[in-house]
């Protein structure tokens, strides 16, 4: 029974058309807070529909200790769980680091091919060094440290601004003591290391009806919603 329910919900998730969100002015944000804005620094480009895997680089702070490690961990966990819940990527992981320059250098240096690509029939027989290189590639691909690179979207998360807020002041409903979070997201194609977009997503927890201090929405909900909206728009657009 539960299997049928699960299948049905998966089917529904797949067939439900996606409607882009307006983070700046929407009823939910007015009532509960957690509105967001997206500023596009580098327009997202390329075909996002090809990405089946997502790697989120562990968020880093650009403001020193004002974004504490516990908060960064919470942010990374929430991003990962929301993308998993969204279900548009077959695999969602958090990775410790990603170096796009290294990826680009590796992509250009792999001239002799990949171990899992067949040579043409008329191609000359490969050398022993090539075979050893392919063996190494095969071994690397089987270890967990070397995750697959094909069709993988990497998102780098950097905290640009953060204020925890003051719950007592939030109860005055005068827009005082609001929490604010601003993040920079850089999107990379894992294989080539190319930056395929960059955006700033910011959110605060000011609301007009429910005091922010007791609202179920927070700054984290705002930025996560903003990020998922950005990626999903592009992915759905590519699938059409």
């Amino acid at each position, binding site marked *: 029974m539960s299997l049928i329910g699960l299948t049905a919900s998966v089917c529904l998730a797949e067939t439900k058309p996606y409607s882009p969100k307006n983070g700046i*002015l929407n009823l939910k944000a007015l009532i509960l807070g957690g509105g967001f*804005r997206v*500023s596009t620094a580098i327009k997202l480009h390329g075909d996002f529909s090809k990405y089946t895997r997502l790697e989120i680089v562990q968020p880093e702070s*650009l*403001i020193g200790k*004002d974004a504490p490690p516990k908060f960064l961990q919470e942010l990374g966990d929430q991003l990962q769980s929301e993308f998993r819940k969204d279900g548009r990527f077959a695999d969602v992981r958090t990775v410790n680091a990603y170096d796009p320059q290294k990826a680009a250098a590796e992509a250009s240096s792999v001239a002799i091919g990949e171990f899992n690509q067949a040579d043409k029939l008329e191609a000359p027989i490969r050398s022993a060094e090539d075979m050893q290189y392919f063996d190494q590639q095969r071994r690397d691909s089987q270890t967990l440290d070397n995750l697959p690179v094909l069709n993988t979207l990497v998102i780098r998360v950097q905290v640009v*601004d953060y204020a925890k807020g003051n719950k007592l002041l939030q109860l005055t409903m005068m827009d005082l003591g609001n929490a604010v979070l*601003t993040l920079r997201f850089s999107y990379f194609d894992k294989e080539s290391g190319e930056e395929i977009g960059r955006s*700033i997503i910011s959110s605060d927890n000011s609301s007009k009806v429910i005091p922010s201090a007791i609202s179920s929405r927070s700054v984290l909900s705002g930025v996560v919603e903003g990020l998922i909206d950005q990626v999903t728009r592009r992915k759905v657009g590519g699938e059409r």
Partner: protein
Amino acid sequence: MRIQLLAVLASTMLFNACSWQTYVGSRVVRHITGAPTRFHSIVPIVPSKAGLQQYRVIEVQPLDNLLPGLLPEKTESYINDQIFKDMQYLKSRPKVIRTGVIGAVEDETDIPPDRTLVFEGYVDDYDAGYAGLRLAELGFNHVAVTIRFQLRNKQSGEIVAAASITSQDDRATGSTKSAINKIANRIKRFINSGYGGDQ
């Protein structure tokens, strides 16, 4: 319980939206408190090392624009100009010169590089917001500018001080220029504290 909650919701909505007295009150409060500046210290100035007193030259480099599709060229120049201008008023008057800008005078100075600081940084965020929505007090609409910078010992490369400053403006009269001016002033005050001035 549900009825009570609905009643609270309805009365809050009425209180917020339909009373002009509330609107005026909220506007006044917003005008006074609606332009906060958030300062995040990344590498604080260490007073035990005599702050920045030993540095007699500050080389101001143009900020790196991390928002190529967002920040107009004119505004970028304005930010760099404003920071340079405000740095002219530092306590104990170190020599402030500009590099990497068209028209900048490359100074031939006798002061050794170990007594020279390089000011460099990034424009991390820039958004002009929506003035109409700010007037109506609706939505997520504020002006926001964030600048991250560091002071580096020219010879050793040691980062002597670093910080990130965000200026936000929720007021209907808020503008990006006023936000930039506030940041430039805050940068000056931060560096000034290293020269024995007030922060």
